[in-house]
């Protein structure tokens, strides 16, 4: 790693980071705030009618009826995914094919730095930025949880008639509504594991983009290849969810390893340590919960290693 290179890469990526950071933090905060407008129990009936579409959702609909489950939806929001993917693809594709395309790799590698140092310094900044962005989503959720209240109906006092077991309300007026701090209903620590999943997902895409970048000399082609793979994987995931006969496709899509909402649900069932288990398999999961993000991170590390070997061995063409 090289301190000067790291400084240069930070300067180079700062604008993108600030833009993504602002969007992710603000969106997560606002999304939690907007969620407090809705009385969840009102939607129970609608969701019951949509039961046959439940297999398209990452978790059971019943989990969405809790505030914790609703807040966890932030991790599957297109804006959050888009920002993380933009950061990962932009930074990953820049490292080799980007510098080659701009012609700046020539001057950079004429300095006494090894190709691995260059790749490593770039990876530190990109991965550091990704961690920062994921933490900002969590921070935005935290801010939303600690600054918002939710309206909850206080059930009217009632009496139960013995033998018939009837419950008769003692008041005929409007039910009482009280404001409850969201923090009383949602523990922000629940989202440590979903945040880790978001990082693992971003890391996989980042390393995939880095791998393509190490093979190519044009950034536009690198971006095209990564986005192509991303879309194919997304389609495979969608088809696997849609048709029972195609559910084997789910095993071949990295989207199957991204389960932030499920992790939040596991916290509700098994406590804070639940999503971090490497041994205990939860309901609806084939593998222990921590294995999923580790698959993404493991895949990402393999991509990085291949990228480093390829970059080391390849000839660097003169800029066009």
């Amino acid at each position, binding site marked *: 790693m*090289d301190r*000067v*290179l790291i400084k*240069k890469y930070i*300067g*180079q990526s700062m604008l993108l980071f600030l833009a993504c950071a602002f969007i992710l933090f603000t969106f997560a905060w606002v999304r939690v705030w907007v969620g407090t407008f809705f009385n969840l129990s009102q939607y129970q009936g609608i969701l019951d009618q949509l039961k046959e579409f439940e297999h398209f959702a990452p978790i059971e609909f019943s989990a969405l009826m809790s505030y914790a489950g609703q807040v966890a939806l932030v991790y599957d929001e297109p804006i959050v995914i888009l920002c993380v993917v933009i950061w990962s693809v932009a930074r990953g594709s820049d490292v080799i094919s980007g510098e080659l395309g*701009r*012609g*700046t790799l*020539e*001057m950079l*590698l*004429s*300095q*006494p*730095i*090894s190709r691995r140092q260059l790749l490593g310094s770039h990876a530190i900044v990109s991965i550091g930025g990704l961690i920062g962005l994921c933490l900002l989503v969590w921070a935005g959720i935290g801010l939303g949880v600690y600054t918002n209240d939710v309206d909850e109906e206080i059930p009217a006092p009632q009496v139960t008639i013995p033998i018939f077991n009837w419950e008769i309300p003692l008041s005929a007026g409007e039910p009482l509504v009280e404001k409850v701090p969201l923090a009383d209903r949602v523990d922000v620590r629940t989202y440590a594991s979903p945040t880790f999943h978001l990082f693992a997902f971003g890391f996989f895409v980042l390393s995939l983009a880095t791998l393509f970048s190490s093979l190519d000399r044009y950034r536009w082609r690198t971006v095209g290849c990564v986005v192509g793979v991303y879309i194919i994987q997304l389609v495979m995931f969608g088809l696997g969810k849609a048709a029972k006969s195609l559910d084997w496709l789910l095993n071949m899509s990295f989207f199957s390893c991204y389960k932030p909402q499920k992790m939040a649900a596991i916290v509700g069932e098994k406590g804070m340590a639940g999503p971090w288990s490497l041994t205990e398999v939860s309901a609806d999961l084939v593998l222990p919960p921590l294995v999923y993000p580790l698959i993404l991170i493991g895949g990402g590390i393999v991509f990085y290693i291949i990228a480093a070997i390829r970059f080391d*061995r390849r*000839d*660097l063409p*003169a*800029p066009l």
Partner: protein
Amino acid sequence: MTDSVEETADETDDPGAANTGYSPTCDARTDIVRCQGLSKRYGDFDALKDCDVRVRQGDVFGLLGPNGAGKTTLIRLLLGYLHPTGGSCAIAGLNPEVDSVAVRREVSYLPGDARLPRHMRGDGVLKFFSEIHPSGNRDKSHSIAKRLELDLRRRVAFMSTGMRQKLALAVVLATETPLLILDEPTANLDPTVRGEVLNLVREAQNEGRTVVFSSHVLSEIEETCDEVAFLRHGVLAHELKMAELFQRHRVTAKAPSTVPEIPDPLANSASITIVDAIGDREGRVTIDTAGDLAGFLPWINSLGLSDLRIEPLGLRSVYDAVHAGQKVAI
């Protein structure tokens, strides 16, 4: 810096030293660049073939050749950007295939098309490169930029091509390495700045640094270089010491009635070409000489030539001959 280079070169003289990848056949103390049978092949195409080049420490070494001749390929092989398909090379006794980082610690390189980070300002670029290279010198790069009349407050993205070239030159020339490799350093520069760059090259040489200078501008090579290598179709076609070139002359005159013969003592250092009459134009004889002209004058006088003209033979004629694939006398 020079001492450390000599130390490294000494080490490679040891038969057990495998770093250079080839057994030294020349004096490692004086050769800072050595290539032996260096080749680079892309499929059926030879970008460089069996190239043997030696650059002596302290020289300004010119690389000449038309586009696609293999000059840049040679430089990129020396710096480890490309992996050779045959032969080997060493800079200061270090093989770029084994340790290209150590090689680049000894070299400051200006690419043919130097492109710098566009998001930085000029002074930021100088700071960055002076920090990243252990031999970088920020003050010196600032003073060179000042000599080249460069505005360092401007962002690279808003600089003209010539300004970027000046900025790259300030980076490269200020880095105090024993070897400078300049690939067309005066491209895109106005004549005044060109002259300044050539002065800087001479200054670098006076400081004891070696310069490898690739250019298409023959006059610049003539002005600055001690030795020149001509590349053609990826092959080292000719090598020439400039001191020898300055001893070459061309005598042209009206063709005599009888074809002159070169006396035996001068046979190895002169050649005669007769051009037959074309239309109304009379035929002419051309006599190229190598070595002290005084030795040729009595013989030339004895030929009874008329309309005689004697001129120093410039690099241009050698370049043209090499380019045309003709044999060059020196």
